[in-house]
């Protein structure tokens, strides 16, 4: 038989022949090396097996109990966005050879995936204006920690400066990693939704790294060039955490003095998938190439002088350098990064610009239309903050009962913002969707003590 799941293939006959070839009478003999005391002498206490059709039925029933894009009109963002994933992305992310290959340690077997990563690196460098990109990091949070580790070794300094307007999850991850790096974290509060270059400069004096986000967590456009200059002035490495979708319109970090550009790649080619898997991108200037974490693919030639691609600069990596490695990462997010590459090919420079313009236009329209006071009166890209007359969480609860998820109640992350709702727009929303949002917000924002319908 071939396993309860049908994933196994050894028939009874196979097993007998194999045991014979091994020279044992039973499987148990092979496990003799496992001390009796540490063996499990009972069956695993896990649910019984399900055949494929039953399994699908079970999973569909779980999936049906989530309010996804297909069942709710959503304006959630705050780092993960409902951008359109082109059909060609599905075509290749489900393609067997790409789906089931692993890290291309043997380049002659893997020229395809190696070339794809090389193309991805090129695309990321073009987007960010940097010289080198790795093959991907885990997500938009961990690449920030990676940047700190690079800065720690490059500058010898220990202070990490974070703009408070950087996505809270990114800051939390940095704070979790920092102690291990022997670094301490300082945060620079925002002034009315944006970061003040002067205060940023003060904090960055003698720091290892100055990290800001463009557009920032409130959707507001930061004075990025000034922040980069501010960080550099203090001798810190300026690092911009950017939304790749914005880079058809917004200046590339490499063009305003950043040492590195990092970000969450989800907006380019990944479904939201309740938080992952996605990919983080990390690009830097030449001088950091030997401090980069993770895989990097380089061009070379074969015995006959033909172009080929290989994993390169591996002396940076854990399997060679071990405790001296630039990072411990090995498995990364290659398949998702490939989705990003395909999406960028599909958009092209013109499509990327148009996509950005659509986000800008819808957001401008929504700011006007929703009829709630803006928390910050500043230019934004695809997201903005409004003040709600009652607790934003309550607004969300009521709106969802009307089939609309109006946005993220950012009071969860920022003190004193319990009445603030962060509203995100992507090209998947329409003018009519925004009108519907305005309508529902009007219905549910009425202030009532007991929270009953107004």
């Amino acid at each position, binding site marked *: 038989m071939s396993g309860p799941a049908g994933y196994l293939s050894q028939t009874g006959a196979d097993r007998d022949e194999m045991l014979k070839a091994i020279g044992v009478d039973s499987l148990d003999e092979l496990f003799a090396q496992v001390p009796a005391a540490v063996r499990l002498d009972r069956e695993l206490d896990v*649910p019984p097996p399900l055949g494929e059709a039953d399994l699908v039925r079970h999973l569909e029933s779980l999936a049906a109990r989530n309010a996804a894009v297909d069942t709710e009109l959503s304006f959630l963002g705050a780092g993960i966005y409902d951008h359109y994933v082109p059909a060609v992305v599905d075509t290749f992310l489900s393609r067997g050879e790409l789906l089931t290959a692993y890290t291309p340690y043997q380049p002659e077997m893997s020229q395809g995936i190696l070339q794809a990563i090389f193309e991805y690196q090129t695309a990321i460098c073009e987007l960010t204006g940097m010289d080198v990109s790795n093959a991907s990091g885990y997500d938009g949070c961990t690449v920030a920690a990676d940047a700190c580790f690079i800065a720690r070794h490059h500058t010898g300094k220990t202070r990490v400066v974070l703009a408070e307007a950087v996505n809270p999850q990114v800051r939390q991850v940095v704070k979790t990693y920092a102690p291990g790096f022997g670094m301490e974290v300082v945060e620079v509060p925002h002034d009315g939704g944006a970061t003040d270059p002067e205060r940023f400069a003060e904090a960055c004096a003698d720091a290892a790294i100055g990290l800001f986000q463009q557009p920032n967590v409130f959707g507001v456009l930061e004075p990025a060039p000034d922040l980069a200059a501010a960080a550099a002035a203090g001798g810190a490495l300026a690092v911009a955490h950017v939304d790749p979708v914005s880079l058809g319109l917004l200046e590339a970090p490499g*063009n305003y003095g950043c040492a590195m550009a990092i970000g969450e790649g989800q907006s380019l080619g990944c479904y939201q998938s309740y938080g992952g898997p996605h990919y983080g991108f990390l690009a830097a200037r030449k001088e950091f190439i030997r401090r980069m974490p993770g895989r990097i693919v380089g061009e070379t030639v074969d015995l006959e002088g033909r172009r080929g691609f290989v994993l390169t600069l591996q002396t940076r990596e854990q399997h060679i350098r071990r405790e001296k490695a630039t990072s411990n990462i090995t498995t990364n997010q290659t398949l998702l990064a490939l989705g990003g590459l395909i999406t960028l090919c599909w958009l092209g420079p013109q499509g990327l610009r148009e996509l950005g313009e659509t986000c800008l236009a819808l957001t401008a329209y929504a700011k006007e239309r929703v009829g709630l006071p803006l928390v910050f009166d500043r230019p934004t890209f695809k997201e903005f903050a409004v003040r709600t007359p009652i607790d934003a969480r309550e607004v969300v609860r009521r709106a969802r009962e009307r089939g609309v998820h109006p946005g993220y109640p950012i009071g969860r992350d920022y003190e004193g913002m319990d009445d603030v709702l962060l509203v995100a727009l992507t090209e998947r929303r329409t003018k009519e969707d925004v009108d519907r949002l305005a309508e529902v917000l009007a219905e549910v924002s009425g202030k009532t003590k007991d929270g009953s319908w107004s």
Partner: protein
Amino acid sequence: MELIFEKSRPGRRAGRPPRPDLPVPALPEGLRREQPPRLPEVPENEIVRHFTALADRTFGVDTGFYPLGSCTMKHNPRVNERAAAMPGFRDLHPLQEDAGAQGALELAWQLQEILAEIAGLPAVTLQPAAGSQGELTGLMLMRAYFADRGEERDTIITADTAHGTNPASVTMAGYKLEKVATTDRGNLDLADLRAKVDERTAGLMLTNPSTLGLFDEGIEEVAEIFHSQGALLYYDGANLNAVVGLSRPGDMGFDIVHYNLHKTFSQPHGGGGPGGGPVAVREAIAPFLPAPVVVRDGEGFRLDHDLPKSIGRVRGFAGPFGVFVRSYAFIRAYGPALREMSEMAVLNANYLLARLKDVYELPYDRHCMHEFVLSARALKREHGVSALDVAKRLMDFDIHPPTIYFPLVVPEAHMIEPTETETKERLDEFVDAMRTIAEEAATSPETVHEAPHSRPVRRLDEVRAAKEPVVKHDFGEAKGLVPAAR
């Protein structure tokens, strides 16, 4: 083959984003981009052909046998892909209210429960994105645990057979590294251990079975040595595929365990990722787990962010949920028969070992678990044919080479992990290929030296790649490299 950038022509395009008829506000001066990024300008049909060609030049488990040691390249059931693509999972925003994500939360909670049972440890976090991040998380947990107890411990001990991520994680966690030797039976050297473990020791990081594919016969003593000093044991779960349902890390004495969902639980490897690296811990360490964790409240489920002693978050949101869906589906397909999965993985490995050990050196003459390590030392000595040569020659048999030159304790190592999903015929094909190559080494060594002969490129100049790194396209300041044939 050309790069997609080399196929670009000004004015071509594929996708057209929606353009609502609304005014586009101007961007502030100084923030506007001057030069558009030089992304490829290609129509959809050329995108499809380009990536089809790249896929054809990539070897996956779907293409053939892929016994890459320590990576557990098992078959990835397609129903798992169908599951992950269900709109209710795929299009769910991670900041959706718990009330709107009950199905996803239940799935994650169920997975936590099942993983806990498999490890024999009570508490699980699903957040880490891969095994190495799981390791780092585990080490941070140790630090938080000892800090909470006011103990100062600064050293982590790893085996000389340890995977590179172990020492690298030790450094990133701010610990000092100490190594322990392996006996000639492939177990940890207990004497060496006793000498090294003391009150400065935070803990041990160990893969069991080891990267040699051998179960540490002294694991009970090992645990005793560390625990008696108040230190902790970390289990690197990369080799868990050998023991699921047979032996549980918690029962072996480990306090912290990571799983590689992309190995044991069949998340496809995606050419390098994504993966999943959940971590399970003992009760005493649970309070320090990264937030949020998924908890059950009566009938419902929610994300619990309120863990005052938590080390904090190591990744965004609750982890790579799509990976959870696949692994959960995989586990539910097996049920308790997961034990049989591991038994067959071990059977397949021992079968290969038995059929190859007379032609390649077996450094540790024992039955193996789910993988084993052979040495091409003799071929090297007698015919100048190295482990690398053998690996390259395997490609001509349409077989992906095993992991080579690892673990470091074995010269000219071939680390071979067939996994449970391979048929006996596939194993026999591999045996025949390996034996043929051993013969060729004697009769026509150049055939092996010059391999591969059947791939789109011959051996590549890795030194050149590292010396003058070219890590992105130069947009036509052509260096005159000839693209390899289609």
